[in-house]
């Protein structure tokens, strides 16, 4: 099971990293989503894996419980990464609507800047 979880984290990370290195906004958003999954599972697994031991206190005698703290952390992390994704989507959408392309790099000078440079020379 440990191998399953570790390999999942690795594959999600690799996919996420590859996608955030794409020069367009939408793949970057997808990549961040994959990275969020990877990070959430990673954090969750710091509590180690346990089967049939949810951290719900049992009324009937002793039961095994998994570590609840990483779960609480990851729960808020999931919600916050949703908020982050939403803001990113809006920024990407806004950038696309304003500039008519969704490239994330700013290496090519804008038209206005180039014109100004020409005038200066």
């Amino acid at each position, binding site marked *: 099971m440990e191998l399953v979880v570790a390999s999942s984290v690795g594959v999600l*990370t690799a996919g996420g990293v590859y996608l955030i290195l794409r020069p367009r906004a939408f793949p970057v958003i997808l990549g961040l989503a994959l990275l969020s999954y990877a990070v959430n599972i990673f954090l969750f*697994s710091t509590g180690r894996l346990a089967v049939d031991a949810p951290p719900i206190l049992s009324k009937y005698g002793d039961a095994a419980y998994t570590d609840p703290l990483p779960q609480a952390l990851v729960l808020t992390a999931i919600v916050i990464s949703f908020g982050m994704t939403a803001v990113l989507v*809006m920024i990407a959408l806004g950038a696309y609507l304003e500039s008519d392309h969704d490239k994330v790099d700013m*290496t090519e000078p804008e038209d206005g800047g180039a014109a100004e440079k020409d005038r200066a020379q």
Partner: protein
Amino acid sequence: MSGASGLLPIIAILPFLGALVPGLMIRAGRTACAMFTAAPTLLALIMLLVLAPAVMQGEVLRAEIAWLPQLGLSASFFLDGLGLLFAGMILGVGLLITLYARHYLSGDDPMGQFYTYLLLFQGAMLGIVLSDNILLLLIFWELTSLSSFLLIGYWKHLPEGRQGARMALAVTGAGGLAMIGGMLILGEIAGSYNLTDILQQGEAIRASDLYLPALILILVGAFTKSAQFPFHFWLPHAMAAPTPVSAYLHSATMVKAGVFLMARMWPVLSGTEAWFYLVATTGLVTMVIGAAIALFKDDLKALLAFSTVSHLGLLTMLLGFGTPLAAVVAVFHVINHLTFKAALFMSAGIVDHAAHTRDIKRLGGLAKLMPVTTVIAAAAALSMAGIPLFNGFLSKEMMLEEAAHTSWAGSAWAVPALATVGALLSVAYSFRFVAHVFLGPVRDDYPAQPHDPPFGLWASPALLVALVLLIGLFPAATVGPLVAVAGGAVIGGELPGYSLKIWHGVTPALFMSVIAVAGGAFLLWRHRPLDRLWNAMPRPEAKAIFDAVVGRAAAASRHLTEASHNGAITRYLAIFVAATVALGYAAWSDGGLAAPTRGLLPVPPLVAVGWVMLLVATASVVAMHRRRFQALVLVGIIGLMISAGFIYLSAPDLALTQISVETVTILLLLLALHFMPKTTPRDNGPVLRLRDAAIALVAGGGVAALAYAFLVRDFSTISDYHLANSYEGGGGTNVVNVILVDFRGYDTYGEIIVLGIAGLTIYALMEALLNGPAARRLRNTDYSTDRSRDRHPLMMVIGTRVMMPIAVMVGVYIFLRGHNQPGGGFVAGLVISIALLMQYMASGFAWAQARQQIEYHSMIGWGVVVAGLTGAGAWLAGQPFLTSAFGYVHLPPIEEFELATAMLFDLGVFLTVLGAVMLMLYSLSRIARYAGETVNVEPMDYDPSQGAEADEKEGR
């Protein structure tokens, strides 16, 4: 700490407190403003005088306010003879300058600002001389650089002022940085950052291997501040400041800070060869060069500036000699230089004020027109020249006497000869100051008719000149005790035998003095040809060199910035990921890895299937990410598999949250994708893609290895506490939920605020977007081609409407059980928002919006308020913020149930989540309205119950 020494921190803080006032009081008039500036200074001076008698008897007063004792940081102050001397000078001259500036500044100058800066500077200076902790001293040291920057650049409209201020800041700031390094080394050697401790450890510090680096770094700081060669060039350029600033900073106080520091550290650092050759040589060279340049300056203030450089060199040289007597002479000369130089600066300011020029070549003959000023300036200048009966003579004689007994690198005559040359040049420029400005025939081409100024302007210099004479005539009676106690503080031991008197008999110093005066007079007589010769000589122009260095540094940093920050965020990310992986690898290869302690859990077949699906889905997302809709669907699969994994691995809360967040995220992305390109063009070539793939694989492999490494090893956790106290302390059996709303309630409170802010940010972004060019683009783009003909199908409308109450019920159920079973405010908020989203999707935005009465903004606000008030409610019970209370209620028809304040808090979480999610959707839908989407009033595009009626409406 005795009662009286408690005044020390108050003295140090008074100017800073006072600095707040002048900026406001300027509305009450200029005189009131000046008086409110003088008040804290006067108060501090009075307190200092209260403490003075004890210090004069040799006591050292200390006051300490501990701050971070672990780091050796404390606000500790101490006052000994040296501190008393400098603090007295700073406050005393500060008062005189306040008076002088009141009359000097014109009506157009913002006087409130000036006085505020002046008090800031005064506070910083006082801090330097009173600090016991060297870290505190460093802070004040930097503060003097900053406040002097403000003062030098006070006349913002003058380019010289701005450039001079920048140069002063660059040079003294750089020196300050060096000194921080030196002081830290010193503190490390001594094992304490308290000056009083460091001063006890001179032997150990001089013997340390780090002595030389510490010495050099500290000296760089002191030399830059005190304008020693080759850092002297900033001081003349700082003369663009208003004259009161020059008189205060550049004669009396700031430039003396370096001298003060050398004197303060004298018992620790002096007495070695390195000290002698570094300090004495620098001082000697500075003294001679400064005096030579001063002789050929035509600007009155430039002449005085270089003479100050020269005199600072003299002081440095005396401290550099390393003999106790020389140190005492240095202290004595500090007092004398202060009195005559401040008076001279103020006189120069008066001349400038009256004649509207400071150019010596355009002046002359002012003695008849400005008799009062002439007397003041002449007395001060004669003192600077070192003429008997004035105080400058006494310390200069003692300096020459010391120089006569000093040999430099085996040569017995080098120091005396150069010291005599310095004194000779000093006589020459002092005489020139008097002869070429005040003597000679009255001219008729002054830019303005010179006249003596009002009393307020000449009162301050007159007082100083009175001191010049008093000290000159009765040195032992006036400043004798002060010199003794301050000198004793510098030496840190027994005072050497000396006497402050005018006639010491026929000594070598007397001959040197006679040579200096005669030679100086000769130089003045031959000034004109010498001046021509000097001007014909090529000289390095410090400002040009400085500007070139700064220009090159700026160009280099711009080059570096542009080369490394070229705007390609993909490149930054690639570098960032690669560097992180490399660092991780470095850390891993350094440390050993303990053997695994945990066995592996078995993998049931179903889990294996899920795992394969996850891997395939992820690979497919990467492979077909350019087809955006398909990629989104695949992301949904990944989320689903992860939720399933959470269920299997005992995290039901996470599974619930993940699956509902998944739904909302995909819905949001689908909505956004509607307005974006549906495919991603291929921008990168195969090489770049291969590089990215390599980085991605290495990063993924690294993370997987790391995760596996800790998964097979045991760990310690603090969760046992949570498990043990969840029921008794928090009243809930769902430990995750109790952690969220109780143990770590503060974190959750922060989280929901962040989520609310995210919602509002999106709303604001849309608002800004729809008022810009994006709105035009939206209107002009035709989105109808990818729009279904039946946008609101009957089945879906009816289906979601039937499901709505069930979904809400599920939400309420999840919310209520949250404290004891998986669920809670986060999940409930998401579930209900999905239920609402379904309505919006099925029946159209306008139709759904018209049927909902609550504004989402206020829902977010209420959520935060409810959560906050619940937390604050704990205060009423005398508990800390967010302590929960709970009880069990039994109502007959229902089973016994629990009421906990944590539930109210969870309600706040619920409201915020719901409001934020819905506000995000609302914002996106507003875009749709701009994109020309028709507003549907009816829930369905085709409603069979309306029949033909609807078709008619459509047609109308």
